[in-house]
C-alpha cells in the first residue's frame, strides 16, 4: 500500500508540474504580453517600459521558474485589466465556485443515491426503468439550455427565484440544480451497480441466512460497501465542476472563478487565466489522488499490486 501511495503521489506531483508549465507557456503563445498590458494605443516606449517593469525581457524558462515559485507562495501576479493582485481576486471569487460545486455535488448525491438504491433493490422493475430514464435524460440535457429553461420558468414566469447575481442563497438554487443534475446519472449508475453487486455477494447472503432484517442488510452492509466508490467518484466530479461551472456561472452572472475566467479570456488577462487554470487543476489533482487512495484502501488487489 505504501508503495502505491508514494507512486501515486509522485504521479500527482508530476502532473501538477506539467500543468503549470502548460499554463505558463500556453498563455505565452497567445502573443506579446507587454502589448496586452500596455494596450493597443501604447507607444513603443510604453511597451518597452512595461516589458522592463514586468521582467518580460528575461529568458522564458527563467520567467517560468520565478512565476512558479511565486505561485507556490500564493502570488499569481497582477491582473492586466484590473491592476489588482490575482490572489485577491481569486480569494473573493473562489468561495462562490466552491459553494456552487459543493451544493451541486450534494444535490447530485441526494438524488443519485436513493435512486440508485431503489433501482438496484427493485432491479428490472418499473422503478428501475424510471430511475434509468431520469439518468438518460440527465445526460442528454445540455446544462446551459436546462439553466435557461429554468430561468424562463422559475425566474420569469413564476418569479420564484432571482435569475442573476450571487447575493443570497436563492441565487444558488438554479445553478446548483443545473450543474448537479448533469452529474447525477453517473453517480446513480455507479450506486446501482455497486448495490447489485453487494446484494449478490456471499456476505449479504450469509446475513440473510442468519435472518438479519432486510433494512439492516441494505443500509448497514450493502450500501456502506457500495458507497465508497460513489464517494470517490463524487470527489472527482467535484473537481470537474470547479472547472466546468464556467457556462453556468456566466449564464447566471454568478461571480465565481468560472465567470472570472471567461471574462479574463475575453480581455486577454493572462495572469488571471493562468491562476485559475492552476488552481482548478490543483484541486482536481488533489481530489483524484484522494479518490484513488480511497478506492485502493477498499480494493485488496490494488493494495498488493502496488
Amino acid at each position: 500500500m505504501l508503495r502505491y501511495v508514494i507512486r501515486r503521489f509522485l504521479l500527482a506531483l508530476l502532473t501538477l508540474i506539467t500543468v503549470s508549465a502548460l499554463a505558463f507557456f500556453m498563455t505565452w503563445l497567445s502573443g506579446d504580453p507587454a502589448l496586452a498590458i500596455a494596450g493597443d494605443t501604447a507607444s513603443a516606449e510604453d511597451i518597452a517600459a512595461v516589458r522592463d517593469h514586468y521582467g518580460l525581457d528575461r529568458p522564458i524558462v527563467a520567467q517560468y521558474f520565478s512565476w512558479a515559485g511565486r505561485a507556490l507562495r500564493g502570488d499569481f501576479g497582477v491582473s492586466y485589466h484590473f491592476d489588482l493582485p490575482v490572489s485577491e481576486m481569486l480569494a473573493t471569487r473562489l468561495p462562490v465556485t466552491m459553494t456552487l460545486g459543493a451544493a451541486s455535488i450534494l444535490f447530485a448525491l441526494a438524488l443519485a443515491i436513493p435512486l440508485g438504491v431503489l433501482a438496484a433493490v427493485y432491479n428490472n422493475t418499473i422503478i428501475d426503468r424510471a430511475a434509468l430514464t431520469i439518468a438518460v435524460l440527465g445526460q442528454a440535457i445540455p446544462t446551459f439550455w436546462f439553466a435557461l429553461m429554468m430561468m424562463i420558468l422559475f425566474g420569469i414566469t413564476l418569479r420564484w427565484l432571482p435569475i442573476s447575481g450571487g447575493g443570497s442563497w436563492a441565487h444558488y438554487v438554479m445553478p446548483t440544480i443545473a450543474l448537479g443534475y448533469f452529474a447525477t446519472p453517473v453517480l446513480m449508475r455507479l450506486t446501482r451497480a455497486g448495490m447489485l453487486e453487494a446484494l449478490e455477494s456471499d456476505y449479504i447472503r450469509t446475513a440473510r441466512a442468519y435472518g438479519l432484517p432486510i433494512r439492516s442488510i441494505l443500509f448497514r452492509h450493502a450500501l456502506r460497501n457500495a458507497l465508497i466508490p460513489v464517494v470517490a467518484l463524487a470527489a472527482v466530479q467535484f473537481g470537474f465542476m470547479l472547472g466546468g461551472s464556467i457556462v453556468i456561472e456566466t449564464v447566471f452572472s454568478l461571480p465565481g472563478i468560472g465567470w472570472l475566467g471567461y471574462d479574463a479570456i475575453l480581455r486577454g488577462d493572462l495572469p488571471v487565466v493562468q491562476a485559475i487554470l492552476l488552481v482548478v487543476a490543483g484541486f482536481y489533482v488533489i481530489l483524484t489522488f484522494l479518490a484513488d487512495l480511497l478506492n485502493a484502501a477498499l480494493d485488496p488487489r490494488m493494495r498488493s499490486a502496488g
Partner: protein
Amino acid sequence: MADQTPAVGPSPGRIALRRMLAHRSFALGVSVLLVMTLMAIFAPLIAPHDPYATDLTQRLLPPFWHDDSVPEHILGTDKVGRDYLSRLIYGARVSLAIGVLAVLLSGLIGTVLGVAAGYFGGKVDAVVTYLIGTRLSLPLFLVALAVVAMFGSSLTIVILVLGLFLWDQFAVVMRSVTKQIRSQDYVRAARAAGASHMRILWREILPNVREPLLVVATVEMANAIILEASLSFLGFGVQAPLPSWGLMLSDAREFMFFDPWLLTIPGCALFALLLAINLTGDGLRDVTGRGGVLR
C-alpha cells in the same frame, strides 16, 4: 439424438442484429439518429428557405402554435428574418460534423495510446497513465475557450480542439480492454507462433476492441456536440452566420423574455440529438454486454 445434425443457426452478426432491434430504446435512438443524419446530408433539398437569407421585414415571426404565425415559416424567423426551420435543419450539419470529426480524431489518439499502454504495459503504460492524468486535470472548457480565443473561432478550430482533448476516455477504456485481451489464449498462441507485435495488434487485438470502442465513441460524440454548443453559445465556437444550434441559442438569449420559443426550438433539437446518441450508446453496451464506461 436427432439434434446431432450440425445446426445451421443464424450467424453471430444476425443474432446481434436481432437483439439490437428487440432493444426498444436502442431502436429508437438509432432511428432518430438516422433521421437527423439524413436531414443533415439532404439539408439543401429539405430546407424550405435559404438558411442565410435575411428579410428585415419578416423579423421574429412566431412558430406555428402561435396565432399570428405565417405558413411560409413554420418555426418562425429569427432576429434578422432568417427562416428558423431552415437554420435548424442546416444546424444538424454543424453538430453532426463536429461530433463525427472530433470523435474520429480523439478516437484515433485515444485508441493508439490506450492499446499501446494495455498491450505493452511497463514504461509505455506509465507514460500513457501520466498523459491521461494530465489531460484530465486540465479544465477542458477553460482551455478550449482560451485556445479558441488565441487562434480565432472557426469550425476547423473547434473540431481540432475537441479532437485533441476528448481522447481520455478512449485511452482509459482501450487500455483496460486490451489488458484483458492480451492474456487470452488466442493472443498467447499467436505470440508463441511467432507473430510480430504489429500483426497481433492488428489481427488479434483491434478486432476485439471494436464494441467498447463504439460505446465510448457515442459518449464522446455527445460530449463533443454539447461542448460545441456551449462554446458557440458563449461566442467562442463556430462563427456566425453559420447555422449552429449553439449560435441560435446564443442569439435567442436576448429575446428569452418575450420570445422564449427562440430558445426552446434549437434546445429541443439539441436535446433530441444527444438523447438519440446516448440511447444508441446504452443500447450498444447492453447488446454487446461489454464496455464498462465510467464517467
